[in-house]
């Protein structure tokens, strides 16, 4: 069965991308001190969208000074109630300009407009709204009376959910009275720069939020700057460890949201059609560029064949292509480099003896694309069972007993997420208890909410984001 769809592209008329962008420091867009420009492209067609600035360590220094001044002179002088109102303003502006953000995010990142429109941007606005309400209630955050902000917070975010990760970082930092120096990812800087405009529209005091574009060297300059009191990083475990080592000899506080190799466990009594949808959502949401993706499918042996048949049929219906088309399910891979990494790992799966399956699908000629894929015959020793692929590639592993499922699920240095699919309530709670992971989705997957703490066990990171637990990472109390 093949469905024909007429293209339904979202218009790009709503966005106004400048040909070049400066850095956002102390409330203004200013040119870099010595930094070159680099291109940011649309990964779906490889067209250049804009040229942004590579911030130098001199720029980082300026931004930290601005943030320090803003913290001392304005932001720490405001009551929580007044601070909160700026966050409410930002939340409202994000809602008002939601479609513009969604289109821009889709263009710069390659993810489908359906996701940016329905998930990324609404959740980003919700994060500001949620944290706005915390600003005057910090005595209830669980750190004793009158907890204090750290001061200046350096935040480094990834390319997979550019605007949402910005919101996860900036909203709690501002609500708790910190000021911010934020670096968006090299390949996805545009929504962060648009957010700088939102800060201006909200009349946020100058210097409270500073946004520096750049690559890893800009990130390193932020991590190592002595004027920064706390670092919050989302990205790979490899870089997270480097950051942890870098700040070991300083007094900087540090939270890390790192990689994962989530197990999605399917027990024999799982409701099979819902489960298939959950598997699809678990690994193909956002092209699999998700640290908490359900990238290891652990399926009970006696239902494997039935499940895989249904999964194949469902995967054949996934529409891969133009991210701005409202019918698109799977968009472009974010960059050439990421595509190469996915290909290399998938090839290791072939070489190590696993069997690859993808539906027939036409991929556009321009841009970076990878079809939805799963591997069967995967052993736990295979690289595709151990390493984070960060792409639309699922490794299928079987188990016979519940305890074998748990043992396999926990057999990884990561511990970010896991899924459980079964009709039996006691088995859900037992499995959830046994799994060493910070987020457990039972009979669902890849759900996010500002009120829900998110973060990993073991090498998936330090601390949580979201909820009271996430908020407390931005505060110092008697109690810490």
């Amino acid at each position: 069965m093949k469905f024909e769809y007429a293209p339904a592209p979202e218009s790009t008329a709503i966005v106004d991308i400048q040909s070049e962008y400066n850095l956002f420091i102390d409330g203004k867009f200013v040119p870099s001190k010595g930094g070159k420009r680099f291109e940011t492209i649309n990964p779906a067609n490889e067209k250049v969208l804009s040229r942004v600035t590579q911030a130098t360590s001199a720029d980082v220094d300026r931004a930290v000074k601005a943030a320090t001044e803003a913290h001392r002179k304005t932001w720490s002088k405001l009551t929580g109630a007044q601070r909160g109102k700026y966050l409410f303003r930002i939340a409202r502006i994000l809602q008002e300009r939601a479609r513009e953000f969604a289109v821009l995010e889709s263009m710069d990142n390659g993810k489908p407009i359906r996701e940016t429109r329905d998930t990324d941007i609404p959740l980003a606005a919700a994060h500001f709204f949620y944290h706005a309400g915390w600003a005057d209630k910090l005595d209830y955050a669980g750190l004793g009376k009158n907890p204090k902000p750290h001061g200046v917070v350096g935040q480094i975010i990834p390319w997979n959910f550019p605007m949402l990760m910005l919101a996860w970082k900036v909203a709690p930092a501002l609500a708790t009275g910190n000021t911010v120096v934020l670096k968006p990812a090299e390949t996805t800087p545009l929504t962060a720069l648009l957010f700088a405009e939102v800060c201006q529209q909200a009349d946020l005091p100058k210097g409270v939020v500073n946004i520096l574009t750049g690559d890893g060297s800009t990130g390193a300059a932020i991590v190592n700057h002595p004027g920064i009191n706390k670092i919050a990083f989302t990205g790979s475990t490899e870089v997270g460890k480097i950051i942890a080592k870098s700040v070991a000899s300083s007094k900087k506080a540090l939270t890390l949201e790192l990689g994962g190799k989530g197990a999605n466990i399917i027990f024999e009594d799982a409701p099979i059609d819902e489960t298939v949808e959950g598997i699809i959502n678990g690994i193909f949401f956002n092209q699999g560029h998700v640290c908490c993706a359900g990238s290891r499918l652990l399926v009970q042996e006696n239902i494997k064949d039935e499940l895989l048949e249904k999964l194949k049929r469902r995967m054949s219906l996934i529409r891969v292509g133009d991210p701005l088309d409202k019918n698109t399910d799977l968009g472009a891979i974010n960059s050439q480099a990421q595509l190469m990494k996915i290909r290399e790992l998938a090839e290791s799966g072939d070489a190590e003896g696993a069997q690859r399956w993808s539906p027939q699908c036409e991929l556009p000629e321009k841009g970076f694309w990878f079809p939805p894929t799963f591997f069967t015959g995967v052993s736990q020793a295979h690289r595709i069972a151990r390493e984070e692929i960060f792409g639309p590639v699922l490794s299928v592993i079987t188990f016979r007993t519940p305890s074998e499922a748990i043992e396999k699920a926990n057999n990884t240095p990561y511990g970010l997420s896991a899924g459980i699919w079964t009709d039996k309530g006691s088995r859900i709670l037992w499995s959830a208890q046994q799994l060493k992971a910070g987020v457990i989705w039972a009979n669902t997957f890849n759900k996010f909410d500002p009120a829900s703490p998110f973060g990993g066990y073991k090498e998936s990171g330090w601390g949580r984001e979201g909820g009271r637990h996430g908020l407390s990472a931005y505060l110092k109390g008697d109690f810490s």
Partner: protein
Amino acid sequence: MRVDVRKTYKLFIGGQFPRSESGRSYELLDAKGNFLANPALASRKDLRDAVVAARGVAEKWASASAFNRSQILYRVAEVMEGRREQFVSEVMAQEGVTKAQATKQVDAAIDLWVWYAGWCDKVPTIFGSTNPVSGSFYNFTTPEPVGVVAVFIDDNSSLLDIVHGVAPVLAGGNVVIAIANEEYPLCAITLSEVIATSDVPGGVVNVLTGRTEELAPWVASHMDIDGVDGSGVEPAAYETLKRDGADNLKRIYSFKAEGSPQRIISFMENKTVWHPIGI
């Protein structure tokens, strides 16, 4: 006259009291400079044995009910109470303080066990949450133990600091490898004798005596240790501990010498569970 039967101070690993596999010991003097004991000088291999023992019983201790852990910690206080005189004399010998001062410290140490015993079954209530997410889902967060925690005992006191280090980590459901302070090993070993007779499963608490500077690098680089209380490590060595401990992202903290639930939850991970609500 009667000749004293002197005590041999050995290690405490997996519920047993072995000497160091290295055969080493060091001479410990009392506060006046007289010979006090030859405590064992633990080696890297002893540390590894302690980690194996601790890991082996970690799941059992973590899955014991909070009420059960609470009773066991209270039991430690009970058994300690019966050994007050021994602890008082050891504190006096090591610190050179008066009997009144030593007694005050021993009383505080026992009371601290009682305080942490009461925390075991409060922590998830106070530090967990039910989260009002959008959409039809039930969503809750509970703190869980990280696993194996190494505790470097500080040197503000010869007994109280040991309880400051060990009790909260146990209360959170973790298993412990305590590295006694080099100056003050006696109460650590005597306390392990208390623990061995207090229904604490063997391996849940392990005590090594020796040199912090020798053991800290091995603790930092051991890939099966999940958390470290570095309160008893000197500042420069603490930086190294944090740097080397980053290889498996150990949770590493140091604390002021006071009781706090922060000491419990620092070595706990928050787990959030989602489930749809529907008919």
